[in-house]
């Protein structure tokens, strides 16, 4: 189990760095929701399924949708 958690944490850290490095806003958004998804997995591991569900639904799903719509409103959403 520890190995799996380690892999998830490394993926989360890498995608968190990738959010800052990506030039394309939509790619950065996708990397951001990967961080949230990894976090929700970690919540399951520490036996907090309620929080995990909230994190997956709101952190990974809804907030990336809101960000995508805000990018669309500002004209920044087209892939380069």
């Amino acid at each position, binding site marked *: 189990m520890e190995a799996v958690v380690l892999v998830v944490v490394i993926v989360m850290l890498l995608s968190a760095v990738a959010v800052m490095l990506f030039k394309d806003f939509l790619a950065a958004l996708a990397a951001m929701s990967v961080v949230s998804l990894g976090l929700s997995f970690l919540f399951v591991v520490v036996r907090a*399924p*309620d929080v*995990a*569900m*909230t994190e997956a*639904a*709101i952190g990974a*799903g*809804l907030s990336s*949708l*809101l960000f995508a*719509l*805000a990018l*669309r*409103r*500002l*004209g920044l*959403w087209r892939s380069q």
Partner: protein
Amino acid sequence: MRRFTAALFLLGLGVMIAAIYQHMDFSNTAVNAGQAINAVAAEETGAANFVTSVVLAYRGIDTLLELTILFTAAMIGGMVLGRRRVDAPRDPDAGFILRTGADLLFPLLLVVGLYIILHGHLTPGGGFQGGVILASAFFLPLLARPGSSINQDVISIVEGLAGATFIIIGLLAMFDGKEFLTPLLDKGELGALISAGTLPILYLAVGIKVGSELAGLLAHLAEAEALD
């Protein structure tokens, strides 16, 4: 200068996390409120999910304020971002895959969202999580066909009724001579679908309120004109 302050901030953050990691014993927490509530929650509220009993029974007013915050945030988000000129062009319809996928997923998402809301007092999940899923269910058709729109008046009426239900249930407890939002009705059998008194009704109100609010916000944002 900015780089220097950023490095200083990172150094401080690192020292803080290292200090916490050194001194924190993860198996023995200093606060034992969780265990104390866990021991009595199922008996006192009748909810098998101990988180629900905290969210709706022991800390019901917190949830009411959370709903208020969400309402304010959604309203302001819609106000700031949701502008549209009359002659602004609309996006074309999405491709075949997204349109068919939206039609197929809509009923499934509806069932999953309602299941999570109605079983909030038994299994993990509840009004907030299920509400978000309901909102995404109603947003998906809009994503597939940008020309169509949700009736915002109906949404605000449904949202207002759900919020009023939550407060009225809380007030009913006061007419009974108890504190605001005290759980009423028969607790029933632990783990049965109809149990835990008013808690499932409260969660249903929360779910419908959150769902309609977020669906309205998403529809509002999708309706806004896009800059090029």
